[in-house]
């Protein structure tokens, strides 16, 4: 299941918030856009960027987040973590992670660390279970 499908199915009952955090694989960091890995990743994740530096200012971060939001087209509005990475730190969100928060403000589902633990199917099951029990 793709995030876009989850959003389409549940957005009237669940608030989806995208949180853009520090880049995972910028050109000036742990870059995966080289001749070998770049080809593999482009094949399996064609919308992922291979050509961005890690933003140095909040303006740069918002600009890249906007490009990301446009390119990925999940339908989910993106909010941008501040340069002190405080939300990322509070949720251990880097590089990718999913959560479901209940109406009481408690964590219902805490997904694993992406990319291997990034499982929209698990989030869907958590949403289904939560909505059924509500």
């Amino acid at each position, binding site marked *: 299941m793709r995030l876009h499908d989850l959003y389409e199915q549940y957005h009237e009952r*669940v608030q989806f918030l995208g949180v853009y955090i520090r880049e995972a694989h910028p050109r000036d960091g742990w870059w995966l856009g080289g001749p070998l890995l770049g080809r593999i990743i482009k094949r399996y994740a064609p919308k992922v*960027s291979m050509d961005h530096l890690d933003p140095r200012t909040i303006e740069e971060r918002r600009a890249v987040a906007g490009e990301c939001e446009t390119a990925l087209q999940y339908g989910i509005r993106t909010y941008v973590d501040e340069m002190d990475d405080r939300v990322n730190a509070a949720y251990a969100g880097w590089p990718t992670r999913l959560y479901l928060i209940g109406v009481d403000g408690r964590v219902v589902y805490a997904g694993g660390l992406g990319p291997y633990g990034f499982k929209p199917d698990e989030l869907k099951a958590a949403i289904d279970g939560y909505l059924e029990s509500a």
Partner: protein
Amino acid sequence: MTTFTDVVNEIRTTIRYRKKLMPWIKGLDERAPKAGDMAPDFTLFDTTGALSVTLSDFRGKRPVALVFGSFT
């Protein structure tokens, strides 16, 4: 033109970064909020910097799915 040396250098770089980051990555799961924990509240702005959202504003109203990620 991709050369054998390019590919070897790429693999070396990936191994070097992975070694550097793995100890930090291992600690991330331990720091992540768990089911049943209160979700840390936050206020963030959208990509224009004009619209904000506060997680706690949804309390008592609707559940929230949080999607953390970046472009690369």
